[in-house]
């Protein structure tokens, strides 16, 4: 589903990705972790072309992201993305947030878009909040709306960029619950997160990044039981032992 080959990116003279290669198969859940500044977010943003890259290639469902001939908006419409800071559109109601791209990008009619929105809001437990505005919701509720907004496009895979990092601790659970359910339904997911509980529970593979490199790319159980590199061991010890 997602193929990343020798991906390289630099901001001026500062390299942020140094030849990263990995792949995510259909139905697979892959967690990407690593210290801050390791390039995780940049990597995931290259998958749908939000970040340009200078070397290597990325393809989604066989379509090359870096090819100038690729219709990027069309490809992105099929790849859901959830952001650290939710990025709901604050000037629109929750319902409009879910409907807008269905109407303008997919060309669905209003009734269809609204039906899809209602169904997804029920699914994330927020049907009662459909006519509120994002500013009137808690962080956890906003992030669940953001997931519903991405799902409303019927994506072939989902990208999560630190979806719980900006949340108060008591709201992390409600967002992870939605993500776990999604994983169990067989959604293809690439998730940048430090939630190792989530990774243990649903991830098929864990990718560990440091300083722009993929240091480790292993089945989840193996990564947690016996990390191969010193850097991964140190990282896990830091985030798990308190």
């Amino acid at each position, binding site marked *: 589903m997602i193929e990343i080959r020798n991906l390289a990116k630099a901001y001026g003279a500062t390299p942020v990705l140094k030849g990263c290669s990995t792949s995510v198969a259909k139905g697979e859940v892959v967690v990407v972790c690593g210290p801050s500044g390791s390039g995780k977010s940049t990597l995931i*943003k290259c998958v*749908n072309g*939000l970040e340009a890259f200078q070397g290597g290639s990325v393809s989604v469902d066989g379509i090359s992201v870096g090819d100038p001939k690729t219709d*990027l*908006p*069309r490809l*992105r*419409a*099929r*790849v*859901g*993305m959830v*952001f*650290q*800071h939710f*990025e*709901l*559109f*604050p*000037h629109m109601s929750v319902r409009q947030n879910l409907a*807008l*791209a269905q109407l*303008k*990008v*997919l060309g669905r009619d209003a009734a269809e878009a609204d039906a899809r929105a209602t169904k997804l809001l029920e699914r994330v437990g927020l049907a009662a909040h459909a006519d*509120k*505005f*994002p*500013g*009137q*919701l808690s962080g956890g509720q906003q992030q669940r709306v953001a997931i519903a*907004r*991405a799902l409303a*496009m019927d994506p072939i895979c989902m990208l999560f960029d630190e979806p719980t990092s900006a949340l108060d601790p008591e709201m992390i659970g409600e967002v992870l619950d939605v993500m776990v359910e999604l994983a169990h339904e067989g959604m293809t997911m690439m998730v940048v997160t430090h939630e190792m509980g989530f990774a243990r529970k649903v991830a098929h593979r864990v990718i560990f990044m440091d300083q722009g490199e993929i240091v480790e790319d292993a089945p989840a159980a193996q990564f947690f039981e016996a990390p191969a590199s010193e850097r991964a061991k140190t990282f896990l010890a830091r985030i798990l032992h308190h």
Partner: protein
Amino acid sequence: MNYHWNWGIFGEQVKGGGETYLDWLITGLGWTLAVSLTAWVLALVIGIAVGALRTAPSRPIALLGTAWVELFRNVPLLVQMFLWFFVVPEFLPREWSLWVKQDMPAKEFVTAALCLGFFTSARVAEQVRAGVGSLPRGQRDAALALGFTLPQAYRHILLPQALRIVIPPLTSEFMNVFKNSSIAFAIGVMELTFQARQMQEDSEQGIETYLAVTLLYFICAFTANRGMAWIEARTRVPGLIARTS
């Protein structure tokens, strides 16, 4: 002060007869409103477009926007009026030039409205640019990630938010349009200031004349201010910006 007050002057016939001084001022007010409102519509349309261009990821496009802004805000408005009136027609193709100089209807009005509209558009563009720039970068990313094209992202996501943010400075610009329209008298638009000068010379009641004109300008600008405040209240997003008034 040895001055012969005569507040009844507005009802008196002008020296040539046929109409009162009040008629002159009302005609002037009409042209002031026509120039100002036409210029404002022009300024909003061009200003929003140019302001958006200045925040575009493509550098040549952003530079184009910057060039527009710098062109119009670094030359005095009065000089711009003269440039559009006397200089620009000379540089048009021959037939156009002749048409503009001889046949163009309401030549003074059209020139003044265009000039004031372009001048104000540069200022509107600056504010729109600041408004778009103040939005979190994630908003653009989120819009693009959903499959919106960049123009769609501006149309549906970025500009509606940016414009709400810049309503207060835009209010000042709207008020400025009415005040700046007085410069149009210099190229012969028979707007309020033009009529006031004429009435002062004709009636020799300069103080009453300019006090009345002051009041009329004040009413125009103040109405613009209240209108924008109404729009601001109407477009306020629940839960987004705290009520400040």
